[in-house]
């Protein structure tokens, strides 16, 4: 979606399911990568390699992205992203969300997996609206 470069900001909120083994630690990995300045890279990698998200795999992804592995390992082991994850979970609960992915495109709610045309339609409409303002 090169045509959308500079026109879209994607904000990530973490909504790890409680009953999946690696949901939470994967979110921790994303947060620590963010703190080390490589969020986009890790975000992409986690999606690509999912569901291989056990602790050892996550550490190998951190290596792959040249992160500070010692700091990374400490962070996911000590759950240093817990405050962010719990804050996002609380927000999801307030919004009555129970499926992922869930999107809010300029505030418009879209639930579940959709094809890219569905998103493009909304995004282009929103871009048109933005131009009019």
């Amino acid at each position, binding site marked *: 979606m090169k045509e959308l470069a500079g026109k879209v900001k994607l904000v990530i909120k973490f909504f790890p399911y409680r009953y999946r083994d690696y949901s939470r630690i994967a979110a921790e990995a994303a*947060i620590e990568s963010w703190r080390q300045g490589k969020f986009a890279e890790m975000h992409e990698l986690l999606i690509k390699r999912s569901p291989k998200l056990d602790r050892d795999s996550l550490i190998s992804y951190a290596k792959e992205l040249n992160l500070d592995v010692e700091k990374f390992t400490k962070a996911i082991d000590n759950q240093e992203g817990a405050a962010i994850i719990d804050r996002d979970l609380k927000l999801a609960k307030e919004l009555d969300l129970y499926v992922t992915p869930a999107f809010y495109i300029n505030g418009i709610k879209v639930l579940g997996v959709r094809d890219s045309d569905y998103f493009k339609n909304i*995004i282009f409409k929103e871009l048109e609206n933005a131009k009019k303002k």
Partner: protein
Amino acid sequence: MIKKMFFLFISLFIFTYAQASETRYNLPTENSPFIGSDNAPVKIIEFIDYQ
């Protein structure tokens, strides 16, 4: 009486449901990671579970 209450409830439900598609939510985004340009005209918030 119970029937009336039931209908009231149902119509309220339908009403709020119809409104829902028009609702725009304003969610906080401070201190959350993002990809793309900060002041882009279209802002997407995604709740994600990586597993």
